[in-house]
């Protein structure tokens, strides 16, 4: 029997399950569910930038950290309410993310990767060493927002906030990639020259892609202190960057549902390996490498191929395609060229 599962049905079931999780789950499972949603947001934002707009940036973990530190420090240092500090943290990450579009106008590929990686390491350095503001390497505790008015514990309350934010950002990403803006992203990724010749303003759309991705990572970051009640630099280091990248590569670059699949799966794996902390980095590095080498289109490619009803339009980059996609010679195809195809 073949299972018919539409990509929409998959998302509805997943998020329905996440919605009822607090009713049935213990404290730990609730935390894992919350973490899963944070990573779904991170993967969506990174996929918009790397998978769709084709900008090989490595600053996602830094944007995540800027959102988290922004939201946490505004509370702890300035005494602002979480509900004001959190949006400010997300917007700060978006603003800084947007500035990265300027180097991206001149740099591409590995050079952009190096420049953004340097920026991420610089951010990490600031978090570690600017003790008077960031509390340094040890991090600091952050009070969780209060949900007693709704009769909910802080953990449960913030879980539902995360759920709503994740669903909204998922729907937003879904609609953006299927619009004029999404087409401009893919055009810019596939053929920069031709995109320009059709009137796509590269600076503008790179800025939009970096801003969106910064906003997604910053939003996940702003939720982080409320979920964990603690912030420290190691939560936003290079391993995090590899983790985010692994999520979109395993799930599927240029796929919204792929971001969700990759993030969910890898958070689950991360928790399985929690007792073996030393193996986490090796396993994720190996997973990333294996997919880049053998299945650059990610799991969603298999799913679309073998699950009838799965109809998400995929926009993978052509150079990550298999060799069977070599352009066919003119004479092999009948009714080709300018002629009417019957």
């Amino acid at each position, binding site marked *: 029997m073949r299972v018919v599962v539409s990509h929409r049905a998959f998302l509805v079931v997943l998020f329905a399950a996440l919605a009822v999780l607090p009713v049935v789950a213990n404290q730990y499972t609730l935390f894992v569910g919350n973490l899963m949603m944070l990573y779904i947001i991170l993967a969506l934002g990174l996929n918009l930038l790397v998978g769709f707009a084709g900008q090989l940036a490595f600053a996602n973990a830094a944007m995540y950290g800027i959102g988290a530190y922004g939201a946490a420090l505004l509370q702890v240092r300035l005494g602002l309410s979480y509900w004001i500090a959190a949006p400010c943290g997300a917007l700060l990450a978006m603003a800084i993310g947007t500035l990265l579009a300027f180097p991206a106008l001149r740099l591409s590929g590995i050079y952009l990767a190096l420049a953004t990686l340097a920026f991420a390491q610089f951010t990490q350095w600031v978090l570690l060493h600017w003790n008077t503001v960031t509390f340094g390497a040890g991090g600091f505790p952050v009070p969780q927002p209060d949900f007693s008015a709704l009769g909910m514990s802080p953990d449960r309350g913030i879980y539902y906030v995360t759920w709503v934010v994740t669903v909204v950002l998922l729907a937003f990403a879904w609609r953006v990639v299927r619009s*004029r803006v999404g087409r401009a992203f893919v055009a810019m990724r596939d053929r920069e020259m*031709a995109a320009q010749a*059709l009137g796509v303003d590269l600076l503008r759309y790179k800025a939009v892609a970096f801003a969106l991705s910064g906003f997604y990572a910053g939003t996940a970051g702003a939720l982080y202190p409320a979920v964990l009640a603690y912030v420290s630099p190691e939560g936003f280091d290079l391993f995090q960057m590899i983790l985010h990248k692994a999520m979109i590569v395993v799930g599927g670059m240029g796929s919204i549902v792929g971001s969700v699949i990759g993030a969910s799966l890898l958070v689950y794996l991360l928790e399985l390996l929690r007792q073996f902390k030393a193996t986490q980095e090796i396993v994720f590095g190996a997973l990333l490498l294996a997919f880049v080498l053998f299945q650059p289109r990610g799991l969603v490619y298999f799913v679309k191929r073998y699950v009838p009803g799965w109809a998400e339009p995929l926009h993978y980059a052509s150079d990550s395609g298999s060799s069977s996609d070599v352009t066919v010679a003119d004479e092999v195809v009948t009714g080709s060229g300018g002629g009417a195809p019957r």
Partner: protein
Amino acid sequence: MNSLTVTNVSVAFGGVDALSDVSVVVDAGQIVGIIGPNGAGKTTLLNVICGVNRPDRGDVALHGTVITGWKPSRIAGLGLGRTFQTSQLFLGMTVLENLMTGLHLRGRTGLVAAALRTPSMKREEAETRERALAALDFVGMRAFADRSGTALSFGQQRVVEIARTLIGDPKVVLLDEPAVGLSVPRVAELDTLLRRIRDERGVTLVMIEHVIRLVMGVSDRVIVMNSGHKIAEGRPDDIRRNPDVVEAYLGRQGDARRPAP
């Protein structure tokens, strides 16, 4: 009426003169062919016109507006289209989506409208789709609308690219070797398509081409370039008989290496 004027343009790349003092005037509604040996500066000339390269000296004007130094996307907005020597299809999209991207400048949808799926956004999306399908009809490729770009033959990719450029209703289109890699029957189809673009849609075409039979057949005027200079210009028949052109292609008559028959 002048549609495109290039005035005394010079470009040098690291001391090598790619273009030296080149001037070109293109009348509206014509097909102008540019020929010349490799390295003559033909592609550089197109790149200067569409804004990819900035000229060291000289000016480019489109419909009387000086566009020298403008960004390519801004020049495109003024009605200049361009196709490339190598395939520049967006391979991560379907043929239809490629065509819809050709209407980028006609659209207004931004992030907010896309997120809210406003009625005007939905209308724009539907219109874009309709126009894209109509453009595929024009080139006889409607049956391929939902195929991926990777599933097309070389000649089909070329035709889709031309359609993608035409869909935004440019007034002038620059074509860089549209016939490269095409078989003889496909070149004949291209010949017909180019004439239809000029006659039915009133588009001015400027085309670099090495397939002499095509250039001489469809062009109203031919420009010959060599080593960064324009060495001749005129009707195809005159160009064929021009001694400078014959020399650029075949070497001087009486040259020891090419004994006269």
